[in-house]
């Protein structure tokens, strides 16, 4: 029975291996409705695999993944209808115009013509793409491509947002709109998972932070909880992250490079 109190995401004992390589090791994670969770970790720590398991794109070797109360393995199409996804690099159909691409998105997510039209126009104006929406995406800057990918993820009113480096390439105004939008959506019960390497963004935007390392969940909690776990009162997320992931001692590396 799915209720408003059902967590948006529940990962129970999830393990994913590729042959001998363990990508994710016994991950337990519960994310509530309206939360903005920052998923942090060095390259190869298992963040992307975790997100793909949430999308139903990768089947876990062990454990279960439940999204909005639905089993990700059993009903991936049903789940996808409620998810908005922005990949790390916006590999979108560059031979389409932004309007055509968003029209395609609307059709795939089953939006009605009027709603589709209205939502596209609202987002195009909000992200400052008006005047260029009829141009081929190939001619866009990276930031404009990113905006198009974000609009595509948001336009169908998803209940869960999975965003991989969502602010990359955005101009300050669009980045601010995006941040405010995520907070507003959060207050309406939309859950957001942000995977990012920009720790300032995670610290400023996220209600909780999850730090992964070598496929394991090292720490999970609010900033205060993380400071306590790392025994670093008053520290910023960068120092906590470096300490927890054991990558903090970078001075010798810098000194070697300066020689």
């Amino acid at each position, binding site marked *: 029975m799915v209720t408003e109190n059902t967590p948006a995401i529940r990962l129970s004992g999830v393990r994913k291996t590729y042959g001998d390589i363990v990508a994710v090791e016994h991950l337990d994670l519960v994310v509530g409705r309206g939360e903005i969770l920052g998923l942090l970790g060095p390259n190869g720590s298992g963040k992307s695999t975790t997100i793909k398991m949430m999308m139903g*794109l990768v089947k876990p070797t062990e454990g279960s993944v439940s999204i909005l109360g639905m089993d990700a393995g059993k009903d991936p199409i049903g789940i996808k209808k409620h998810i908005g996804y922005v990949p790390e690099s916006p590999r979108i159909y560059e*031979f389409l115009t932004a309007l055509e691409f968003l*029209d*395609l998105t609307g059709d795939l997510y089953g939006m009605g*013509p009027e709603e589709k*039209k209205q939502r596209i126009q609202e987002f195009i104006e909000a992200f400052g793409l008006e005047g260029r929406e009829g141009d081929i995406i*190939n*001619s866009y800057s990276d930031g404009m491509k990113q905006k198009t990918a974000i609009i*595509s993820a948001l336009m169908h009113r998803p209940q869960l947002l999975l965003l991989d480096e969502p602010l990359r390439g955005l101009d300050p105004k669009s980045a601010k709109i995006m941040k405010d939008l995520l907070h507003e959506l959060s207050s309406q019960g939309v859950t957001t998972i942000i995977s990012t390497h920009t720790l300032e963004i995670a610290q400023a935007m996220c209600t909780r932070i999850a730090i992964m390392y070598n496929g394991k969940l090292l720490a999970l909690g609010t900033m205060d909880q993380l400071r306590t776990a790392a025994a670093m009162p008053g520290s910023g997320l960068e120092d906590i992250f470096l300490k927890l992931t054991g990558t903090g001692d970078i001075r010798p590396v810098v000194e070697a490079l300066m020689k």
Partner: protein
Amino acid sequence: MSLSNVLKLARVYSRAGRLISKNNFRKYREKRWEVYAIYALAVALGALGGGGFGYLYTITGDASARQMLYQAIVGFFITLPTLSILYSLFMTMMSQIRQTGVKAQIQPLYWFPVTWEEHTAASALSSTFGGALWISIMICTAVIAVSIPTGLLPLAMLTVLAIFLSMAMASLTMEAFRAVLAAISGAVLKSTGKAAVWIRFFVAILSFIIIYVAYFTAYTSTVVVIDAIGKGQISAWFIPYVWPGIALYTFSKSMWLYTVLLAVLSIIFAVALFAAAVRLNSRYGLADAPTISVSRIYKPNEGLLNKLGLSPAESAIIKKDFRAFTRRSELRYVFIMPIVLVAAVFVPLITGNKTSSGGLSGSMGTFYYIYLAILPAVAMSMTLGISLVGSEGERLWFLATSPLTVKKFVRAKFFFQAILCTAMALLFGVIGYFLLGPTARYAATGIVEAVILVFAAGMVSLSCGIAGADFRELPRPRMIRTEWSLISTVLVAITGLCVLLPVLAYDAIATMGLLSGGSVNGAFLYLAWLVSGAIGLGIGYIFYGISISKASKLMMGLE
């Protein structure tokens, strides 16, 4: 202009040119001996050919025969510079076409301290590497080898120089031509909006028709071309490209002043070509993403596809694929196959092989009609089928993360190729009917069988396209693994045979009946259509199931 920079850049550009033909672009490591072995082979072949001809000359005892051979060799030397311009132009043009689908950037890196002169010289130099250089080295070695026993060494040395000068002229011309094309297409694409999409589509088809017609014409009359060059280049003295050849002619006739004058003029012309190429490159050389403005008015509508019973998601993907195939330059090759199939048969047919009345005889006309109605559409269906899924490339994540069922995904891909290829079958069927004049029964049979085959072969090739999809996009989109392309060809051929079998059987029985003075009830032809349709449907259904299964695995295995 730094020669060192030119040589370094030329090495980079030629290496990039070689890389695009390799399968594993990222892990590809070049073995230097392999690169140069081909040129060593050209030297060996040239020496063998030239030496052999020289030996033939020395063992010829008859004086008049020796004189004839001598004249033939001199005449051949004189044609070589002009001939080398022709094959260099062709080779560099083919190399340019090959690079149109390359995603990896092979263009000047504008932030490097490289002048446009250096870039142009390097680019022109690198475009001669490969086929054109291979042929030239082989010819030059043969020329030197044959000149020693014949006593033509001075003329041979000049011929070699003239060949390389002509090659330079050809590659510089192509360099300038490429910049002009970039300028024109850029201007067209930037200014004509929605029409640009269609202009690009039709220009692509037209270009390939012209190239292939030219290719087949040249292929069937190479001797005529060489003969024409020998006879024609003197009378075409006003064309600078033939000046090296005429210089050789004047040298052979001991007209020294003319030789010097034409040699100097040839060099001046090559320098002028270089200057023009540099100027054009500096103006238009940098690749700039065209800004095509398709529509500023947003009009969501139901559309014809929805009315045909397709779901909004399916018709959205069909529309997207149609746009892809009219806008993505690397997908143009899909349209080549039917054009080649038509050109390969009909160009020689038009140039010869006609009856005395100028038309095709009855049975020949029927054969060519069936060929025209069936083969181009089925070939396109097969090419589309194997490339439709792979052409998604790195963007497959979008469909994989969309709430799109695998069935809808497969159906959308299938109906896209089915709609396009059925239209093509009907078009070629109607054109063939008016051109070749088959009987109404044969005309209808051709179209019916073509449509059945489009559906059956399309489903077969689509399942191969899903099973063997190759999403690598660098250096150029692969779309399908080679082994699956071959498997698809074999399976489509078997499908074709199975589907056509009832009609072929009917035709054989009818022919035998006619020969023995009897006749076969015409209704059996309609029965043959029905059996064909049932076979096509059965094959299509089996491969539809396979496609669904393969596509499910593909989506789930997306890493």
